[in-house]
């Protein structure tokens, strides 16, 4: 197991270097002049040059790349030309909001998707299966921004049940920083009113973000369950008179969970990337929103920083899934 984990760690480092190099090159060869943009519409050439020099943009691209990789090795993600702040500081500021959203969305996806997938398989082609089929197709097909606006109109404007956007009401001060996750920090602080309002704020964006993930988990789990439920050992279990609930929930689900776990790992990374749209619609101050506003301003270093961050979490999530695989299926440990 230790060798397995070490191999994964090496892959992580290599992949991160690859992501950094590729993203840096892609963002820097894209057209656009960030220095001119930041200098303002009326800035003279020498004003633009002042900014270029300050941020090292007057150097050639290979020189900039070497400097950037050197900084990266020292744990420095550079400075944002738009906000003039260190990228690492900003990524760390925005990451908890995104992670909180992704965790809640993933939680919804799993606790709803897995049981629904299981039930759809058990009652295959029944009314429940048909309903979940429509549900899962909608989940994949409906664009997130449209679904988000629809929920805002229904639950915020018409029914007035939930807030339109943001993480907290305007006059509510965030709880003392421990994890950056408001739901957790407010509970640690024993501040239940803040917990409640932050829960109200996260419901709609989390539903929007979880919908496609939920749909995928549901379909994969259903397909796998159908296959497992037809296998010999399940038939044998039934012949022994074991209760249907025990067969489905204990014997079948464990084996059906392997592909579902893979899907969860993939979806975690996908969700981190998808927060871009959801965070924009709900003004959720996470790394997705930070990446979009930076990209639109040709502010490249934050884009690279966010990509690295997402890449890191994606790899970590998939490594954890691989480890879980190995735990569930001992044959994989030897592979």
């Amino acid at each position, binding site marked *: 197991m230790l060798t397995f984990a070490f191999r994964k760690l090496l892959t992580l480092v290599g992949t991160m270097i690859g992501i950094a190099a590729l993203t840096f090159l892609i963002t820097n060869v*894209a*057209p*656009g*002049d960030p220095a*001119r*943009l930041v*200098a*303002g*519409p*009326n*800035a*003279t*050439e*020498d*004003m633009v040059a*002042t900014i270029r020099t300050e941020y090292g943009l007057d150097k050639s691209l290979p020189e900039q790349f070497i400097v950037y990789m050197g900084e990266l090795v020292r744990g420095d993600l550079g400075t*944002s030309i*738009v*906000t*003039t*702040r260190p990228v690492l500081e*900003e990524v760390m*500021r925005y990451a908890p909001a995104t992670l909180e959203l992704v965790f809640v969305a993933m939680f919804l996806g799993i606790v709803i998707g897995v049981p629904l997938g299981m039930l759809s398989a058990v009652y295959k082609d029944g009314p429940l299966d048909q309903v979940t089929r429509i549900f899962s197709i909608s989940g994949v097909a409906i664009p997130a921004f449209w679904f988000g*606006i629809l929920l*805002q*109109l229904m639950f*915020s*404007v018409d*029914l*007035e*049940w*939930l*807030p*339109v*956007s*943001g*993480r907290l*009401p*305007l*006059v509510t001060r965030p709880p003392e920083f421990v994890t950056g996750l408001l739901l*957790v920090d407010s*509970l*640690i602080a*024993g501040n*239940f*009113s803040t*917990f*409640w309002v932050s*829960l*109200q704020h996260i419901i709609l964006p989390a539903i929007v973000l979880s919908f496609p993930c939920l749909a995928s988990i549901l379909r994969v789990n259903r397909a796998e369950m159908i296959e497992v439920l037809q296998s010999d050992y399940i038939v044998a279990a039934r012949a022994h008179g074991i209760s249907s609930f025990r067969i489905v929930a204990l014997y079948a689900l464990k084996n059906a969970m392997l592909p579902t776990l893979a899907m969860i790992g993939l979806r975690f990374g996908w969700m981190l990337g998808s927060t871009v749209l959801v965070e924009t*619609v*709900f*003004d959720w*101050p996470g790394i997705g*929103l*930070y990446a979009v*506003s930076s990209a*639109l*301003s*040709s502010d490249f270093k934050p884009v690279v920083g966010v990509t690295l961050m997402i890449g890191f979490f994606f790899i970590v999530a998939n490594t954890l899934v691989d480890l879980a695989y190995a735990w569930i299926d001992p044959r994989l440990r030897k592979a």
Partner: protein
Amino acid sequence: MFGKIIRNIAIAGLLASSVLATPAGAFERTDKGNVIVFGGRQAIPVLDPHIRYDWSTRMMQQAVYDGLVKYEGDPAVIKPWLAEKWETSEDGKTWTFHLVKNAKFHNGDPVNAEAIRYSFERGLKLNKGVAWMLKDFLAPEGISVVDDYTVKFELKAPYTPFLSFLPWWYIVNPAQVKAHEVDGDYGQKWLTDNEAGSGPFKLGRWEPNVLYEAEAVADYWKGWPQGDANRPAGVIYKIIREPAAQKAALQRGEADIVEGLTPDDYVQIARAKGIAIEDHKGMTTFGIKFNTQQGPTADINLRKAIAYAMDYDALIQVYNGAASLETSPIPDAMKGHIDVPGIPRQDLAKAKEYLAKSGYPNGGITLPYVHVAGLEEARRIGLVLLDSLKPLNINVEIKPEQWPNMVANGSKVETSPSMTSVYTTPVSTDPDAVAYQYHKNSWGQYFAMMFYDNPKVTEMIDKARSSSNWDERAKLYADIQTQIVADQPEVFGMLQNRRWARRDYLQGFQFSPVRFTGEVDIYPLWVKAE
């Protein structure tokens, strides 16, 4: 810790079950009074008044800082602020400002002549943001302290628009800035999200990409126009990026005023109870800029043909009527504006006449029309252009482009597209602010991507900006406007109205056309509570 969390979750669940829904809010009420919420689409990354000045940034800068003078009203006039009076030498090179004696910074330090000198020196030496407005005419050595409350500016050459830029040069407290200097950075790092001003508000919470809060200064040296009893406790600028979310926030009372609705949204929401629309004629011009140096649009007859083929009424319809046609390159609200006789309006016969004289008498060409990606109105104007040019057998390729790329392409004559949609907001009410866009020195800027070159116009612009005789200047600007229209470097489009939607209890809104798109002076606002 986990036991504690789980126990707390259970208690929170019980509490939650007792509250079914969040009631719709209104303005935020705090212990100190009412807090007005402004919903704006863009962030304020850097507050330093000498580094950045886009509309959202300037709105907050105006709240926490003061200038020597301030623009107010419609039409915009320059009013004394930190300077109670000023005089100019006969040659127009020396400007002397006399300061009010009761102004103080938020930390209690007096606003004196040294603070003025330091602030201008800082702006010029940093060579960023607002520096371009004065750097060609004012050197740091040209600013001197006459006495504690008198400061003198000696310009390198006469520059009449000098005063018109001063409202945007905000005064910082030298003591606070110097105390936070790092490696001689003039306090740039610190002023990014701190302030050292004397304005009616001081900075409250600063949560990047979420909200920015300004807290009212109870004993603001200039007093409060709405009266102490009515002044708000503060203002929160909340970032709400999507128009649909802005509309929803306004309807729910989560925002008291918003700036970024779509033209259709304004029409719809105007009918809602408790909502009022501020609709004012602005100074932001819209033009379809031609590349006058290269490609088919270098041909003046083709440019004229396009200008006469354009359906101008449809331009107004794109904004549901909330716009007016340009009658000159210089907007109506600006001093020196004239209605240029014969400015093109749709006339297909004339359009065909000019086309026949051009190098493309039968059309048969495709011209790109570039607009900012995501700007729906600009895209729809592209469709109007496409329809308008069909009778000339000219095809239009509508190309959305990200703003940074558009600016980069427009900075070189070789890459500037044949037609680009550009909105331009002048930064002052002096006609030079617009006229100089047609000066050769402006080439490379986004508003000069037509690479217009008429030596006669350039000479007149130079002469007008150095003259201190308004009658002479007025005559020159009239000639400049007429000549530019005759040369047709762009399709002169329309002036889009500035609009905000607000709750009707929000009072004191004062429009001034010289402010940037979306920018509101929050100083006079107040809440009329039932």
